[in-house]
């Protein structure tokens, strides 16, 4: 029998999970929603971040989240490099879409197999003080390993939100998303703006990767599970909208945990696909779509 208590716990866990999903998806929201670059390799960059956190934690005992925050500039540079390559080969020639997709699919594959060859198929975890203990309220138990990533994700997403709405560069990125041509008429170097934005997108992947390995053990192919999820959230949220992404992430997190409470955790991956198909069929512009 599903009690009220169980349901309440599911909803609260879902919100925590949803917050983390927002951090996972925000990079896709930037790359796919704003820049129109279908980076299906994004989840694999997240897994890469997790493995960096794992290695550093294992050898030096450094906190995984601290590690990925330190590593994010490197990911930023990686993102810039990938964008330059992508732009030079696909986008500037105007025949981007199909080949760009296949290109990122290839990247996904190469990174995944490299991780597989280096680390094997085992699940890896990290050791920190906040993995294990719970914070309890009256009827709800909150595992700290969910709370910390939730707080971190919210900080990341709100930081980005402020960046996009209040700084010059952030607003330039939003402008590129809206009308690139018009922006180029204002003598703005749109390619440099997009390059910066894509770098930020990949940098968020590193941070999300740190959260991921705190929440659950990670193996090289875990990224695949997240592909459907991140795109479902991004589309549901209305593509380029940060607020929409957060709302959609909470929604999907709650629906997923309720599904796994009612039907068993093995059904959870199906939720995102259902959400994606429903959104595409009913309201392709998403919650916050224009």
């Amino acid at each position: 029998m599903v009690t009220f208590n169980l349901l309440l716990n599911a909803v609260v866990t879902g919100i925590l999970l949803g917050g983390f999903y927002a951090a996972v998806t925000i990079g896709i929201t930037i790359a796919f929603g704003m820049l129109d670059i279908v980076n299906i390799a994004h989840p694999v960059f997240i897994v890469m971040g997790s493995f960096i956190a794992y290695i550093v934690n294992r050898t030096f005992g450094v906190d995984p989240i601290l590690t990925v925050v330190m590593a994010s500039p490197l990911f930023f540079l990686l993102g810039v490099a990938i964008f330059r390559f992508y732009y030079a080969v696909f986008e500037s020639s105007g025949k981007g879409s199909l080949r760009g997709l296949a290109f990122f699919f290839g990247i996904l594959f190469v990174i995944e197999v490299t991780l597989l060859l280096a680390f094997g198929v085992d699940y890896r975890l990290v050791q920190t003080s906040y993995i294990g203990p719970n914070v309890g309220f009256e009827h709800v138990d909150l595992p700290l390993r969910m709370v910390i990533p939730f707080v971190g994700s919210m900080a990341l997403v709100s930081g980005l939100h402020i960046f996009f709405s209040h700084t010059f560069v952030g607003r330039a990125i939003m402008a590129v998303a809206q009308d690139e041509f018009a922006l180029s008429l204002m003598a703005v170097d749109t390619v440099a703006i997009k390059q910066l934005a894509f770098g930020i997108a990949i940098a968020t992947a590193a941070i999300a990767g740190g959260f991921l390995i705190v929440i659950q053990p990670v193996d090289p192919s875990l990224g695949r599970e997240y592909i459907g999820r991140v795109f479902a959230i991004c589309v549901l949220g209305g593509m380029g909208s940060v607020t929409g992404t957060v709302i959609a992430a909470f929604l999907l997190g709650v629906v997923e945990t309720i599904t796994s409470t009612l039907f068993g955790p093995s059904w959870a991956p199906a939720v995102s696909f259902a959400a994606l198909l429903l959104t595409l069929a009913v309201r392709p512009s998403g919650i916050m779509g224009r």
Partner: protein
Amino acid sequence: MRRIPSWIWPVAVAVFILTLSRLVENEYYMFAGYVVLQYIVLASAWNILGGYAGYVNFGSAAFFAIGAYGTIVLDKLLEPPLMVAILFGGIVASLVGLVTAYLTLRLRGVFFAIATLALAIVLQTLVMNWEFVGGPLGVYTIRPDSIAGFPSYVNYLFVVMLVLALISVLVARAIERSFVGRGLAAIRDNELAAECCGVPTLRLKVFATMLSGGLMGMAGAPFPYYITYLDPNSAFSIAYSINSIAMPLIGGMTYWIGPVIGAVLLAVIQQVATVTISSELNLMIVGVLLISFITLAPNGIVGLFESYRQQRHRCSST
């Protein structure tokens, strides 16, 4: 003198391979050849939608697995002949293609690509939770006794796959030269313009998805008998998805021969690499080849060959 119809060449090659299969004693060649032929089907099928119309399907593994698990279900219920199982797999897979296509193809092509990617994961979840077909543990299939007229059951499977490969190549060829192929090419080049010129774009795309998915399902149907033990990880292996994209891209996507060249080349490399190196590394080879071809030779081997021929033509004419 009348021209020899050009469909004769694929048929002749198939007949030649058939004769060869009767002469070769070593069963390993049948096993390896089966995989190569299977990839010819998958690559040609993918190319009908991906190459001609420019819509990327990331879920070839899903359609393949539908065929494979279709056979398992039928086998448990009625033990029908293989032909029935192949037809069943093809029909179910094309129906799944119909639904996915209808829901997502009205939008931008990217959404279709993402939906197919997610489709593979969801169907795998479904199979994992379905005890009747073995769930996560997988299921054993018993090969029927060998069929009259064939030296062994593996030889029979090889011939079946040879016929399927021939069918897919002929279908792809027929599509390419019909109004459907021209319509799909128009969609690839400029969908809006095609729509304005009266090309029934949605209907053509849905049709291509059904055909492509159906052929992939048919390729998957004999698979349980081939490996005799089917589990979700092998049926939904991402190797099928990446290979069916990489093979047409490497071979060349505009003509039917491209996927065939790509499939033979990559599948043979992988068969050799699996035996000599390791199976993870051969996926790496595919990934690296895929990236290098889309960046350096976007029109594949056929494209390289064509530009070489054009260059020579230009040199000789001046």
